């Protein structure tokens, strides 16, 4: 493998990891802070991609699709939290799994009614549609580079909120000890509502951002859900920093695995997860249960 091919694969791996981080950070926040296992997280990833397809088809504007899709997902998240999810706090995991599995079925059905089951594609903004020529046979799409940049900016924004703002402190404290946070007067139902909606919005955002480089199809959220759970477990439940490290590890392992070990590439990320869990049972940055 020459240096340029290697660099291309490295970029692919990092870019996949960054998208994975966006989706998984939403999942880990909802899991870690609300204590809710949201199996429908992947369905919102898919829904985001369909929103992007739908809005950009009618307006021809990807920027509008991005903002509109995220806003719609956030609004749906707020509504779902109020109607269903808030009943799940403190309930056992079976109730959570049943409800969020039900949500998958409903979302799939609504998607079927609104958009059908055809495979769609979404056009990237025209100014990002070109490719950069690397060699005679290799070129790299500009949109993929832009995607990396957007994800990095978003990741920086997420880290800023989590690490530097008072809301972030409350979120981290709540992930660690919810009762103590409440006893200090933090209105957790309000925090919960926005964390859940924010988590859903991040899943949708991931789906919107990948829509120009992937196809938009009904089952696209399923695989994403599984990989996101791998990232969450790998990084440590509730840890956004852990999700970032885990997502990049998975992105690179998967991408280079397909290049170097194509026969076993599909199990490599699970081998990685198992290895990390043997070494650190609570994930890379997870805390021990006290």
């Amino acid at each position, binding site marked *: 493998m020459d240096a340029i091919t290697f660099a291309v694969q490295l970029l692919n791996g990092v870019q996949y990891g960054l998208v994975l981080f966006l989706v998984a950070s939403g999942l880990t926040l909802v899991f870690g802070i609300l204590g809710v296992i949201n199996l429908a997280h992947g369905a919102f990833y898919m829904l985001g991609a369909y929103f992007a397809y739908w809005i950009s088809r009618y307006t021809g504007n990807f920027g509008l699709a991005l903002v509109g899709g995220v806003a719609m997902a956030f609004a749906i998240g707020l509504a779902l939290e109020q109607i269903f999810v808030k009943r799940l706090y403190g309930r056992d995991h079976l109730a959570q799994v049943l409800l969020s599995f039900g949500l998958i079925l409903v979302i799939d059905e609504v998607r079927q009614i609104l958009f059908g089951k055809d495979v769609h594609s979404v056009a990237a903004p025209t100014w990002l549609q070109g490719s950069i020529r690397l060699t005679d046979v290799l070129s790299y799409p500009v949109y993929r580079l832009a995607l990396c940049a957007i994800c990095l900016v978003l990741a920086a924004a997420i880290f800023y909120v989590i690490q530097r703002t*008072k809301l972030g402190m409350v979120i981290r*404290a709540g992930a660690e*000890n919810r*009762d*103590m946070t409440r*006893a*200090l007067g933090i209105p957790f139902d309000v925090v919960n509502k926005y964390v859940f909606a924010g988590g859903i919005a991040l899943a949708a955002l991931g789906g919107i951002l990948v829509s120009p480089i992937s196809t938009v199809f009904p089952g696209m959220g399923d695989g994403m859900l599984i990989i996101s759970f791998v990232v969450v477990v790998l990084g440590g439940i509730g840890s956004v920093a852990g999700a970032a490290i885990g997502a990049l590890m998975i992105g690179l392992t998967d991408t280079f695995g397909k290049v170097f070990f194509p026969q076993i590439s599909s199990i490599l990320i699970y081998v990685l997860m198992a290895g990390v869990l043997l070494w650190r049972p609570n994930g890379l940055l997870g805390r021990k249960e006290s």
Partner: protein
Amino acid sequence: MTPLLKISDLRSFYGASQALHGLSLTVNAGEQIALIGRNGMGKTTLLKSIVGLLEDRRGEVRFAGACTLSAKPEDIARKGLAYVPEGRGVFGSLSVVENLVMSARAGRSGGRRWTLERVFEVFPRLLQRRGNGGHQLSGGEQQMLSIGRALMTNPDLILLDEATEGLAPMIAREIWKTLEIIRGEGIATIVVDKDHRSLANVADRMVVMSRGEIAFDGTPAELNADPSILDKHLGV
């Protein structure tokens, strides 16, 4: 004057088992109450019932002029209650400063007597460790942080569970000194500790618990006058 906290006939349950059996207790503004008794007699249960963390509670609890029997912990806290739990409850992933400012707010009367500077003045040790994570602190430092965090909410009543448990004597003395400062500020406290002699020095009233009920409620002098009470409820 209406008392700050008035508990009547409080019965608390963990599932099917009853932990408090019709307990009554009154705390006036600025009063320091020492809560003593053997393990498992319901001291922590009582504190958790007041804070609202124990959900199944019946009877009557009024705090700061409102019924808080079925209120949520966050709403009770905002009426001017702060809680320093057994095991300190310090957030390990937050730095010392973050632990202090995350829940900082003005008191019920709008006053902000307790600020970051003031807490660092009382606990210089925390200033030295301001950038450290909560998980890097010693037990004594964690207790100072937990008390400092409670003060930062500018409360009218602080509940302090196992104030000096597991602390070296020198650190324990510092905690007792802090309690005198808090008393001087006119903040009421309910303090649980095994060291009833030190408690008697700082408390206005000694309350002895036994089997989910109050066995004695009086001044330290009154408790001293009748050694049989301590013998019966604290002696091993």
